[in-house]
Structure formats: structure tokens, C-alpha cells
């Protein structure tokens, strides 16, 4: 076979692989997903992504800023259920500071591991995350240490020059009681760049569906599709000065609307509880779960077994 024929056959194989991928992707998009997502934006409960499912999410945070420009931070999240006890997630985030610029601020790789096989009164999940973010990161996905509002007033041009590699550990505890979900997260973070101390934070939340029984018909506005609650989060200082002093604290009502058409919408207006906090944060997010994504990728790999 000539070199040209070999190249042509490779191109044709690549093209057929691409077509197959496209076909499988369309088929996956057509599969109904299983939206029953929690309304929390910062707090985690103990539920992981279903195995083989991919959830694609977009979140947005608008924040007011004293002594600086207001901002709009945003992130995309790709959450995959690797097994029934392990969920892995990739975040890509950026922000726009009004009257300044729009910049990419980094990525995070998060893993959650369910520690117990069965449901208990309190269910623990271990959370491990690696972050590579710039100093201009403003998504406020978690608040820890002595993070205060004035940190976010630094102009983008300056803040983006700071690069952080962080490891973050969380212990997620959650339980259900009479239709309510109660979740509590303890956060410990270590910035690997420089000699920064361990920093601590917390997040907690409570939520409940508006109706506990499902209705017979598929509907968009049924109470069972709405989950409402409240979350509270903030910093707890660092290794040398543990406590609430010089920390920011937030309280935020949350609501999620799980649509039968597989989409979930979340909304959360957040309010700063002290002078170190942003006065107001408006967060919203949209997500869609693609069930069977892992199987689709599996079939793609299987197709190329010798």
C-alpha cells in the first residue's frame, strides 16, 4: 500500500470515528436525564453524581464592591459520576470587573468520595480539590480564612499577576429529616505557593422540596420540582488566628427548579452579614445532566478494540 493510500485510510477512519462520536453525542442528548438537583450553590450535601452521568453547569455571580468596581464572575462545571462512591469535577472560571476587563482566572479539579456504603443519620463525604487560580478569582465558590471584600477591590491588571496553587479539603456532612436536607461543610485550604498558613471556612444549608409527593402527570410548575432553602457560609480564619475576626460571612436563600425537560435552574441572592463582606451577591446557574455519557464514551473506546 502506498503512503498516500495509508494516509487516506487513516483520514477516513478518523472521519468515521468523528461521525460515530457525533451520532452517539446526539443519541445521548436525546436520553431523558434525571434532574433532582440540590439548590445549594456553595454548600454540598452527600449526594454524588449518578455513575456514568455527566452534568454540565454554568454559574454566574454578580457582586457589589465598595471602594472598587462591581463584578460578574462565572464558571463552567463538568461533573462526572465515575462510580457510585466517586464524583470528579472540572471547573473553568473567569470574571468581568466592570470598567476594567474580562479575564480567565483559572481551573479547579474536584473529587468527592462517599465514605460509607449505606445511609446513616449523618452521611460523610470527603472532598479533595486542586486549584490553579489567579489572584483575580472572584467566583466565591467558597469563602475561607480571612477573605474579605477589600481583597476583591484590587484591579484585575494587578491581581491577575498573582498565581495560586491550592489544595482544599472538605468534610461534607449531610442528612435528611422529614423531607428536609441539612448539610454542613468544614473547609481547610492550603495555598502551596509561598508560606501561607492553613485557612479554614464553613458552609451550611437546609432545603426542602415544596411538595414531597410526586404528581401523576409530568408538569413544570408542580411543587415537587421546586426545592427551596437557605445557606450560610464564611471564613473561620487561619491556623494562627482561628475564629470569626476579620472574616466575611454570608446568608443566602436558595431555590432550584428541576424541569422535567432535564434542565435545572438555580437562583440565590446572597447578603453580607458584616462589614467585611460584599453587601450583595446575586448568583444563578443553569445545568443539564447527560445520563449515559460514560457508556457512550465506553462504546467509543470499545469500537477500537483490535
Amino acid at each position, binding site marked *: 500500500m502506498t503512503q498516500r493510500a495509508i494516509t487516506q485510510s487513516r483520514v477516513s477512519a478518523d472521519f468515521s470515528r468523528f461521525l460515530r462520536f457525533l451520532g452517539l453525542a446526539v443519541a445521548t442528548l436525546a*436520553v*431523558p436525564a*434525571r434532574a*433532582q438537583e*440540590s439548590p445549594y450553590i456553595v454548600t454540598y*450535601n452527600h*449526594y*454524588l453524581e*449518578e*455513575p*456514568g452521568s455527566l452534568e454540565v453547569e454554568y454559574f454566574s455571580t454578580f457582586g457589589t464592591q465598595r471602594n472598587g468596581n462591581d463584578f460578574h464572575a462565572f464558571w463552567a462545571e463538568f461533573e*462526572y*459520576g*465515575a*462510580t*457510585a*462512591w466517586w464524583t*470528579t469535577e*472540572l471547573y473553568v472560571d473567569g470574571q468581568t470587573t466592570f470598567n476594567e476587563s474580562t479575564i480567565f482566572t483559572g481551573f479547579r*479539579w474536584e473529587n468527592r468520595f*462517599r465514605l460509607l*456504603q*449505606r*445511609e446513616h443519620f449523618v452521611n460523610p463525604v470527603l472532598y479533595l480539590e*486542586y486549584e*490553579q487560580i489567579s489572584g483575580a478569582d472572584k467566583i466565591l465558590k467558597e469563602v475561607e480564612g480571612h477573605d474579605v471584600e477589600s481583597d476583591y477591590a484590587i484591579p484585575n491588571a494587578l491581581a491577575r499577576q498573582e*498565581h495560586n*496553587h491550592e489544595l482544599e479539603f472538605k468534610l461534607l456532612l449531610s442528612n*435528611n429529616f422529614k*423531607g428536609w*436536607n441539612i448539610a454542613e461543610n468544614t473547609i481547610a485550604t492550603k495555598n502551596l505557593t509561598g508560606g501561607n498558613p492553613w485557612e479554614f471556612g464553613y458552609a451550611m444549608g437546609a432545603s426542602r*422540596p415544596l411538595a*414531597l*409527593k*410526586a*404528581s*401523576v*402527570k*409530568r408538569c413544570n410548575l408542580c411543587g*415537587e420540582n421546586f426545592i427551596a432553602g437557605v445557606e450560610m457560609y464564611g471564613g473561620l480564619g487561619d491556623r494562627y488566628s482561628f475564629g470569626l475576626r476579620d472574616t466575611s460571612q454570608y446568608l443566602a436563600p436558595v431555590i432550584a427548579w428541576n424541569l*422535567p425537560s432535564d434542565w435545572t435552574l438555580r437562583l440565590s441572592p446572597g447578603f453580607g452579614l458584616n462589614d467585611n463582606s460584599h453587601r450583595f451577591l446575586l448568583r444563578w446557574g443553569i445545568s443539564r445532566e447527560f*445520563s*449515559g455519557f*460514560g*457508556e457512550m*464514551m*465506553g*462504546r*467509543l*473506546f*470499545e469500537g477500537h478494540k483490535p
Partner: protein
Amino acid sequence: MDKTTTTKSKMKIKVGLLKSSFPVVSSIFVAVAAVFIAAARKEDPAPAKKNNSVCAELAKAPKKAAARRNPMENDPDAAAAGGKLFELHCAECHGDMAEGGRKAPSLLADPVQQATPGTLFWILTNGVIRRGMPVWSKLPEPQRWQIVTYLKSLGAQKTFRDAGKGPP
């Protein structure tokens, strides 16, 4: 410092950043690829083995949980609502008619249909994490009982059909 030197130092910073992030990014790709390859290599266990494992899981339900009564059993809408929930949350693995699939066993099988409602509720609540079934306690209790009612109604339909009295 002249402009060329500044540009060079900026480029150095960028190259440094790329180098430092390379191990992390590559390890993410390796991990993701490993997950997909593992998913691709999963094979179907034989039906007999599947049935045995179902029996084993059902037997794990504590007596107290197994003895629980279904509070929805007299609710005329429970089976229909459960059917809707089944379609949304369970059919992908267990099949549209609960006949079983590549990932999960048939729920029409005798061991499942003969299990008490309490046992099915317990399995639904706790999942079978080792075998890939997630916990479904995120559905409120009444919804889980609605699913149990639906599953039990499938058994009744099957018995009816098996007896040859079913509609054509």
C-alpha cells in the same frame, strides 16, 4: 528595562506557568481516560450470578426495615406517580419496563417481586454502592414509596399475564 526585555520576561512567566500546570493537566486527562476505559471494559455478569447478587442484597435489609408497611399502598395515584418517577430515575439502568439492562438487574424477577415493600424501600434508600446503584434518599420518602408501589404493581401485572388472563 526596555520593551523587548519586558516581553521576554512575560513570555518566560507564561512558559513557566505552562510547565508548572502540565503535570496537573496531564494527570487530569489520564484519570479521566482511565475512568472511561474502565467503564468500557465493564462486562455483563451472567443472569444467574445477577439473580444471586440481587437475592444477597435483598437479604441485607434489616428486619425492622423489611417489616415497614407501605403508607402509599392504598393511594390510587401512587402507582402512576411511581411510574413517572421510575421513568425519570430508574429506567435508564433497569429498562423502560423494569426488565433489566446492561447495568442493572430486572425488577420483574421473582426475588424482587417477592420482597416486602419495606425491603425494596430500604434498597432504594441505601442503594448498592459497590455495584453502582446510587442512594436514592435524595427523593423524599413519599416519592420512594410511590416507586415501590409502582414496582409491586408490575409484579401483579406479570402474574395476571402469566395466568393468561391479560388483555390481548
